[in-house]
């Protein structure tokens, strides 16, 4: 059993085999093998407690069928089920997705990272730059010149519809 501590000091106890899905954690455990019990505590300071909860839920779901995933020989039905589950899992607000991406990146969990990025790109799909800016609450910070001249002139066609 290992213990994860989030930035707001909450503790999460996870089976080592489950947490091993994070390559970062696996390396840390490997490094500290044979040492004292206290070394089985891992600080995940860059994420708040809501995210480890989600990450652990994700791990547990994937832990139930590790071999099938590794060998990509999952039966069609199981794959469908997992797909449905993942769709539901990632069906969350864009801020949580941001946190999940950062967590998946720092903990090195490729499948979680891919899933979250996929969902973000789904959200961004068929939206204009302005809409994306609004959803993600980004200030564009472009200078007047960039906004008026440089950006539109580079790929002007994207913003146009000539003969309509």
């Amino acid at each position, binding site marked *: 059993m290992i213990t994860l501590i989030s930035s707001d000091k909450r503790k999460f106890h996870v089976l080592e085999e489950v947490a091993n899905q994070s390559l970062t954690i696996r390396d840390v455990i490997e490094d500290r093998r044979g040492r004292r019990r206290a070394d089985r505590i891992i600080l995940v300071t860059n994420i708040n407690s809501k995210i480890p909860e989600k990450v652990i839920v994700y791990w547990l779901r994937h832990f139930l069928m590790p071999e099938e995933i590794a060998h990509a020989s999952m039966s069609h039905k199981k794959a469908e089920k997992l797909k449905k589950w993942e769709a539901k899992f990632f069906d969350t607000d*864009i801020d949580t997705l941001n946190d999940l991406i950062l967590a998946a990146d720092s903990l090195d969990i490729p499948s979680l990272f891919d899933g979250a990025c996929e969902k973000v790109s789904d959200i961004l799909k068929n939206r204009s730059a302005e809409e994306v800016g609004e959803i993600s609450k980004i200030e564009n910070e472009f200078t007047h010149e960039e906004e008026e001249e440089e950006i539109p002139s580079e790929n002007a066609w*994207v913003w146009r519809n000539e003969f309509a």
Partner: protein
Amino acid sequence: MHGRRDWANLPPDLITLISEKISTNTMYVHLRAVCKGWRSSLTPHPRHLPRQSPWLLLPRLNVHDFRLRFYNPSLCKSYQFNLPYLSGKYIYNSYGWFVLNHGYRVSLFNPITRNSFDLPSLDAMSKSERAVPDVQHYCLQKVLLSCNPSEPDCFVVAWFLSWSDWELGFCRIGDTHWTGLKKRDGCTNLLDFTFHRNSVYTVNCKREVSVYDLQSLTVWTYPSKIIYNPNYQRINLVEGDGESGGPLVVSTYECHGKINITNVYKWCDSQQQWCLVMDIGKRALFLDRFNCTNLQLEGTQGNAIYYDASCPLDLNVFRVSINRVFLKNGSVLQHNLGPSVVFPTICGWFSWFTPSLI
């Protein structure tokens, strides 16, 4: 980050990884315009994008017309590019690049990125086989690329109208001359050619198939014939899908200026003959008068052939429309482009163009 959610401050490598999930260049351009941080993190020339859903290139009014006008059926939008550089040049397009020919000079030009590459001039070729000085012996008929020329190992194959014993020549980016592909018996003319797995497949007017390997410069010829009537039908060779079997042939005929599809055949390497196909899976063929492109596209109905079926509404107005032929049963459906797609009357041929950001 301590709970501070900030999309603008995502590390550049993360925003790059997210952008790699994006599959259309329109989306990608929008993503780059979201904020300063994203703009500097994302390259203007992404290499991960698949071949894009094609635009219909409208005919030019004349050879000096430097406007390129496109219609994008997937977004129902039209674009106009003013490119005085193109004036007076013959153009043909492949992989989103125009092949420009002006006199002896040949070059590749991407209208989206405005990048260009020079190709060997036709001059050098004429000099090496000089017969009558100052007469242009070669002119371009059709040019195909094996991949995007910004990728390594791109071959350019050109079909010349010439008076020598070869009609096909190829070069790579940076070459100083064209290398000729000799005709087998020196007299049979070409009907069409295409690329397939870095080999050039040709069909000549005896309906024989020849396969040129561009690495070893070897050629195999097979006597197998396509069933079609050369009196009123024409054939279009199409690249294969890279997985199963060889290239395809679409046989068509024209009636009152409109294209009609008759059959699609696939070259079977094992049997060394053309086999009729009714199913090309999720892939779609985009046919025009000069070429036919084989693409697998997200959200486009596959197993079909798309071609231009535009018609004049009156003397001044032209409505763009596209026909879709289902391979399974041969039924034809007019692709709905919405009510407002009208252009000033034009004459000439439409062709497909797959826009590329690299």
